């Protein structure tokens, strides 16, 4: 096959020699799905009630921006405020019940190998990048782009994008309300496992951001493994 050259600027990927640990499901069971998400790319999959999705942070400190929808009624979707209110906590960790816009459990964190995950900071986007970094970054890729592209495969659109969850991303809220994305708490091969409490469509953006530490300035793959627990 001839190599085709292109003048299109594409997003950064991980540096040669980066440590990658693909790990395994955090929960034993029959594997029903096992997919690798390249850096910068979107992913979606359905996790049936009772099944457990393990997300592997293959290269460490790679934000996996995530939205969830009830497959039977996409109008019922992940809700940051409902999750925070029922937990009375601003961070996602072991045992956190991820709730829907109707206050119902969508998924529960049943396994977790890092201190906490973020659900305050939202997704990066071309538009918010212009606010954060300047208009020169307008043609950088962003998670909102991934969400829109992947959502469209399920009949969902811009009206369906809401505040999301960021696996492996670290956003501390200080006592004076100051908050921001800072260096991550994860490492290659660290995992989180979430059990579906209903049939859930999961959208993930393997965050392409190169202007802040949410991907350690080195975007790496994610591995998505769904098991029927044994």
């Amino acid at each position, binding site marked *: 096959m001839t190599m085709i050259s292109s003048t299109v600027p594409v997003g950064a990927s991980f540096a040669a020699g980066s440590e990658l640990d693909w790990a395994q499901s955090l929960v034993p069971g029959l594997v029903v799905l096992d997919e690798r998400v390249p850096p910068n790319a979107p992913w979606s999959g359905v996790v049936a009630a009772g099944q457990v999705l393990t997300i592997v942070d293959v290269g460490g400190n790679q934000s996996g921006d995530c939205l969830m929808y009830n497959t039977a009624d996409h109008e*019922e979707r992940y*809700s940051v*405020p409902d999750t925070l209110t029922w937990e009375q906590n601003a961070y996602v960790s072991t045992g956190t019940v991820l709730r829907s*816009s109707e206050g119902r459990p969508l998924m529960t964190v049943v396994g977790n190998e890092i201190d906490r995950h973020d659900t305050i900071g939202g997704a990066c986007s071309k*538009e918010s990048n212009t606010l954060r970094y300047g208009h020169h970054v307008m043609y950088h890729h962003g998670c909102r782009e991934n969400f829109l592209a992947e959502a469209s495969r399920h009949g969902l659109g811009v009206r369906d994008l809401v505040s999301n969850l960021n696996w492996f991303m670290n956003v501390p*809220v200080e006592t004076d309300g100051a908050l921001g994305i800072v260096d991550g708490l994860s490492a290659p091969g660290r995992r989180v496992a979430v059990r579906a409490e209903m049939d859930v469509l999961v959208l993930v953006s393997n965050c392409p951001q190169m202007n802040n530490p949410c991907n350690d300035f080195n975007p790496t793959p994610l591995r998505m493994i769904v098991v029927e627990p044994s």
Partner: protein
Amino acid sequence: MALSAPRDQHTTDTVLNARSDARAQGGQSTEWMPYLPASSSPFAPAGTDPASLVWGEVVAPGGYTHKVVARGTRIRFDDPTGNACANLVVYNALEPTERLNVADTQKIPWQAYLGAGHPLLSGDGRVLASIVADTSGRHDAFCGTSTDAWNERKYGDSRPEGPTPSGRGLLVKAAAKHGLGRRDLPPSISLFQGVRVDSDGQLGWQGSAGARTYVELVAELPLLVLVANVAHPLDPRTDYVVGPLHVHAWRGRATGPTDARFGTAPELERAYLNTIDYAEARGL
């Protein structure tokens, strides 16, 4: 509180009598109602020119309201009792897919707590509204508003027509009146009842700053405003306590480069530039 008068006070046996009976009910006032024209509001904020008022309303406890206002409109929320809780969602009225994005509203200014100078950002990198005055300082952008599930667990009832309506139930109806559905309701913010985060991430109730505080917004684009005045989900009181909410708005000017707040932070300045760019291109 029964809203209808007893049967024997009405003569409604013919169309003519029914019409007379209905017409005799006009001209009354009550504690919570819109005032038309807005200049007739008895609660208009001091110093406002009555002729410039475009919205004058007292929102009932457990009530909701909604309006489309022009770019530049100044909107004021007053909490006369210390028990109001204004749960807000705002949209670009011209393209309601552009709507409040609470994550960007907290992340872009590097500040989770709302206050004077804070922009209410859309997901499109623009300022939908600016908070330009705030005498309360007790607000919340974490918890959103109550759902039916929450109020059923907390109070045993969530019906919008009942004594303990959920905020979401009311916002669903307000949105529906503008052709918007459940999928169009993003996370909301609330004014006048504060929540603070401790070092473990625990969300602590701060509550009200007391009676007679207010918040003023400037609409930076033509704005659809949805407001539900319901008890905050973390309000520790076992009773459903919420006070009336005053809403007034008057004609004004959107934020521009000559305003001090325009350039107070680089993120904010670019957000205003994006907003002005959109408005100029649309001929607003």
